[in-house]
């Protein structure tokens, strides 16, 4: 598909909007679960809210990749090539530090926001290399 600049900007806006909504949903749901008592069904519905919003974000991201031109796709690929092993290394490091008795207060399952941040930094770096 050949997309013009305005279409790419609209798609990028929707990606940012969905990512912002996801961040808001994650914060609000986490706060709500920590501070309120919920029955099983409402709690299940509540925890699924970020999942549904994340699915929307993924959908918008895939649309962005499909409307990107070849250079933009190359930058995205390079960002993944950096971020994926770094995110794995981060998870592995924390896990082994915990096996050694260090950083016991950190839940490895809560590393994903940091891994997402690593990807964002890698994306910025990949674009910056071509400036």
């Amino acid at each position, binding site marked *: 598909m050949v997309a013009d600049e305005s279409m790419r900007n609209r798609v990028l806006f929707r990606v940012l909007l969905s990512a912002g909504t996801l961040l808001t949903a994650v914060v609000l749901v986490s706060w709500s679960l920590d501070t309120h008592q919920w029955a099983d069904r409402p709690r299940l519905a509540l925890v699924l809210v970020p999942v549904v919003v994340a699915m929307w974000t993924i959908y918008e991201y895939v649309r962005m990749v499909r409307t990107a031109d*070849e250079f933009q796709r190359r930058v995205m690929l390079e960002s993944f090539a950096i971020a994926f092993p770094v995110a794995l290394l981060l998870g592995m490091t924390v896990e082994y530090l915990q096996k050694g008795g260090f950083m016991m207060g950190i839940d490895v399952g809560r590393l994903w926001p940091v891994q997402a941040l690593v990807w964002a930094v890698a994306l910025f770096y990949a674009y910056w290399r071509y400036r």
Partner: protein
Amino acid sequence: MNNRLRVLRAERGWTQGELAERAGVSRQTINVIETGKYDPSLPLAFALARLFEARIEDVFLPDGDSGQGA
């Protein structure tokens, strides 16, 4: 790979944005091609050459060939 994109674009009075729109790519992509930071794929190189009504070898040149004699 060198290219004469900036010269050809200037001859037609097109901005990077206008060329990008005609080629169906982003303005940033035209910029990195012009500055030699990114070599386009063969289909995009052909598409750009076609926009300038030139042969691909008149737009894109091997390293070390500045295109002065082209």
